């Protein structure tokens, strides 16, 4: 079970907490916030890579979840539902940012022009120390992720970071399984292009 933080033995289940929330119990919601805030924050942070904005967005996601709680039928796992809300909140933010002209991503419509259009992340001289190398690789990965479109970022994060199955990703976005696979393929190809120096040297 990839992204779910299944309650440990003795803990109240998500579905019980949801029912208590639906009865107006804000303390039950606080437990859910505790349980998932780290994951929601990680997702918003990876998507926008700005600590304070990610903090605000994560909070906004929980508040929207509370507002939508009366309509949640428990027909999916709570975390899947919460991640869908987080996705929407983050996506809206990115859309607004793009409207404002900050758009650092420009590959929204280039699914089939990966190799030609992909921009390589600047190559850095390898550091002698392994820790430094790791830090450098981490920085390059963040840099490459930042250059992906929101759609591609989302599928990569849901799959690679959250470890979600295709069906779960399709439910969150929402889209078809085919779209999930296509987006994953092109997102990986773009990352591969951007990080090719790293891997070509290593292989």
């Amino acid at each position, binding site marked *: 079970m990839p992204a779910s933080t299944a309650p440990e033995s003795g803990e109240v289940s998500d579905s019980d907490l949801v029912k208590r929330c639906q009865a107006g119990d804000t303390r039950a919601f606080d437990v859910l916030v505790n349980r998932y805030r780290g994951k929601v924050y990680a997702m918003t942070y990876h998507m926008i890579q700005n600590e*304070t904005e990610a903090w605000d967005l994560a909070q906004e996601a929980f508040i929207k979840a509370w507002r939508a709680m009366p309509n949640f039928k428990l027909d999916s796992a709570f975390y899947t539902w919460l991640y869908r809300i987080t996705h929407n909140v983050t996506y809206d933010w990115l859309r*607004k940012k793009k*409207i*404002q002209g900050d758009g650092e991503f420009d590959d929204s419509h280039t699914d089939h022009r990966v190799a030609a259009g992909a921009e390589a992340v600047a190559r850095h001289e390898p550091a002698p120390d392994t820790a430094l190398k790791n830090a450098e690789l981490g920085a390059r990965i963040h840099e490459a992720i930042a250059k992906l479109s929101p759609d591609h970022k989302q599928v990569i994060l849901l799959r690679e970071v959250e470890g979600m199955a295709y069906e779960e990703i399709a439910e969150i976005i929402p889209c078809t399984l085919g779209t999930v696979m296509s987006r994953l393929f092109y997102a990986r190809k773009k990352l591969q292009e951007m990080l090719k120096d790293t891997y070509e040297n290593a292989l």
Partner: protein
Amino acid sequence: MKLASTLALWILTLGCVKAQQPVAPPVESLPAVKPATDGKVWGALVYATNDIKGLTGSTEVAPIDFADIPGRLGMVFPFQRFEILGQHLQDVFREYESWVVPTKDLFLKVDSKGPADGGGMNLHLQFWRDQQVLVKTDAVLKEGSPLFIGGPKWREGQLLFVLVLQKSR
């Protein structure tokens, strides 16, 4: 619009390089569709001090609608003189961020969060000093009820930021 801002940036770049040309010439803006707005705010940076000799000599005067602001500042901050150093009347855009920049040194980013119940605007504000954000706040701004921000100390006094929602006309 794009041409105007590009031209502005170009002029500013030249202005920075050529100190002998301190005043940028007027620029004709191109016709453009005005973005939707939720209201208008007036922002001012005020130097509060008891040291009359230390006043900067700024000639800025508050618009008539906000002429009572210096007096009201005196009811909150323990100073006798309130000198407006800069002021800015700004539309608050519905979809985009707005900047209220009465001075180069302290300025405000304003994001509309829509109309507030009973009038006024829900706002997200970020108070910036150069490239450092001093405070972020969610606030409701109502007509006739200004927001005073007590900022950093400066010389013998303090810098204050005033934000007021202009009455709808």
